[in-house]
């Protein structure tokens, strides 16, 4: 059993700067958890505290039920894959992978068996005699993973392991990592700033911002039911659109008044939820895929006219960028067959069944 628990975890640097502000997180045995957030949100610091590479200012970390606050990294039974792989350049691939086992005084045959097995899983058997310098980025990444696998640790820690790879290789290695972790079934904590990586890899995603956890949940939950404006805006690509609006009661129903006097009816099934917001200024959050070419057939559809500024044909879809009064760049996702041109008025349909209303003051999704 290797569950990881973080309780009221705090990291404060000299000068009183708090990188992590008392977070709580329970990671179950065999779970793949991804910590995601922008630079400086405290995700890497949290991972390094779990690894024992950073001292803890306050709180408690336990691995497999044992509090490890004062236990050095070598005794925590963890393995870590670093952003720049941290392979020992003077050792061969085999020696790099075997190093942890040699230090732990494993028998030679056992070391040989484990390294060969990991090399087979990662398809690097033919590279075992090479030095890291003679490997490509992707191969180095595999070796770094191999070094972690051979140890058969309680917890795998990944610190932005794909950041140094080009876009194509990153997608390929993402799949490889998922495959490997599914094979070895070890509790994994993975840090990234890339929300696509987080969504595709995680059993649960932990969204961090400014040293706190904004929301924890399975990828789909975070996508469809974000708790805060930050999560709503961070998860999803292109990002969710936010449009200032006012909730206006109108003879038993509710409308949203957008800039430019556009009036959108709030679907009846969501009216009860927002009734108390009548007369208040809110932010309408709607994803680009719910802002599409004109459609009909659902009560939740509402039309609006916009003037496109930039058209981005992506092949399977076309992204239309426009703006409304008081907003920055807004984006709609259109079928590629729909003709759209910059400066030519275009009618769009907003599917309000998938809208979110955000309290502009607290940033909470209402």
């Amino acid at each position, binding site marked *: 059993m290797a569950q990881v628990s973080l309780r009221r975890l705090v990291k404060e640097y000299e000068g009183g700067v708090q990188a992590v502000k008392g977070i709580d997180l329970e990671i179950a045995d065999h779970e793949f958890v991804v910590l995601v957030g922008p630079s400086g949100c405290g995700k890497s610091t949290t991972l390094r505290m779990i690894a024992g590479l950073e001292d803890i200012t306050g709180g408690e970390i336990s691995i497999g039920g044992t509090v490890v606050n004062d236990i050095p990294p*070598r005794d925590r039974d963890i393995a870590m894959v670093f952003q720049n792989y941290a392979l020992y350049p003077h050792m061969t691939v085999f020696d790099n992978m075997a190093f942890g086992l040699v230090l732990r005084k494993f028998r030679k045959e056992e070391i040989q068996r484990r390294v060969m097995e990991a090399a087979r899983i990662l398809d690097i058997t033919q590279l075992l005699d090479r030095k890291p310098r003679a490997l490509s980025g992707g191969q180095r990444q595999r070796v770094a993973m191999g070094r972690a696998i051979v140890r058969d640790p309680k917890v795998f820690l990944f610190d932005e392991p794909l950041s140094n790879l080009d876009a194509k290789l990153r997608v390929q290695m993402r799949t490889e990592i998922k495959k490997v972790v599914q094979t070895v079934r070890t509790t994994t904590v993975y840090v990234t700033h890339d929300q696509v990586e987080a969504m595709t890899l995680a059993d649960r995603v932990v969204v961090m911002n400014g040293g706190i956890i904004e929301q924890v949940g399975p990828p789909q939950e975070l996508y469809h039911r974000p708790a805060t404006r930050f999560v709503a805006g961070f998860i999803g690509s292109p990002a969710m659109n936010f449009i200032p609006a006012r909730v206006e009661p109108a003879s038993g129903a509710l409308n949203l008044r957008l800039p430019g006097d556009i009036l959108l009816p709030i679907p009846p099934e969501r009216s009860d939820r927002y009734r108390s917001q009548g007369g208040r200024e809110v932010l309408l959050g709607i994803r680009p895929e719910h802002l599409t070419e004109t459609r009909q057939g659902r009560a939740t559809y509402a039309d609006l006219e916009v003037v496109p500024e930039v058209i981005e044909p992506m092949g399977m879809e076309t992204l239309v960028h426009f703006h409304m009064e008081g907003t920055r760049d807004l984006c709609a996702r259109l079928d590629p067959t729909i003709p759209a041109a910059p400066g030519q008025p275009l009618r769009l349909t907003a599917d309000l069944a998938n809208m979110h209303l955000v309290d502009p003051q607290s940033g909470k999704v209402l």
Partner: protein
Amino acid sequence: MASDATIARNAPTVAPRAAPPTTLQKMARRRSTVAFLLTLPLLGVIGGLVAWPAAYAIYLSTLNRRMTAFIGLENYAILLDNDTFRMVIWQSCFFAITAVILKALIGFWLAHMLHHIPTKGQRIWRGMLLVPWVIPPALSTLGWWWMFEPSYSSINWLLSVFSVPPVPWLGEKWWARISVIIVNVWYGAPFFMIMYLAALKSVPDQLYEAADIDGATGWQRLRYVTLPMMRNIISITVLFSLIVTFANYDIVRVLTNGGPRDLTHVFASYAFQVGVLSGNIPRGAAVSLFMFPLLAVIAYFVLRGINQRTKEIGA
């Protein structure tokens, strides 16, 4: 005239054909020629200050005392037969090897200590520890001579405070040898320190973190990460220092002048004594050239090792 002009107007336009470049022009256009010309000043300096004196010294060492006849390797044969010279070989090797080992160890220790103190304080310590290296050695050795001098020795005075009897620093064979080594180490260790400090700073922190997670203790980190990562710097520093220490002259000359009874002479000081003071320049040249083949072979293997490692690990 008019018909000439008409002919010229009607004639088809032909571009004037350029004359084929001469061999000299071709050479001047070649990148290798330009590169050679640009490096010529440096080649001139090396030729004038290194190659020519070295070749001339080799030539001198094959002449008789009056420099009138070629005697081949006889100077070397005579030297090898000479007890004092055999002692000089032994003393030079003992001096150079002991001093370089001590300088390397102390330099590494100092570098390690400096590396682990905060940057702010590090600058002051680094500056202070470099002082011995920036003082001209002839001057600093004079200071040491005063400290070792039997009548006014401050070191002996310090020892007497702890009831230790006075030590004949420069008067007794082994103490004199140790004194020469102490001064050389004092002067040379800061060079090792600064080189090793730079090397330590270039070892990525993540390698240590990876080693920590792999289960390495402090000693294992040093053995499996720090030392292999510093191997090239260690090799080049030791080689450089070995050559310079073998050629050391000023410390021995100022501190002991080769005494007592020629027992602290090294190649350079003995070469000066034989060649300049005793007026046998060819034999003096033979003394100073004696270690050249051995050091050249050592240098070749060390530099080959460094090249190989650089190719393999890119460090």
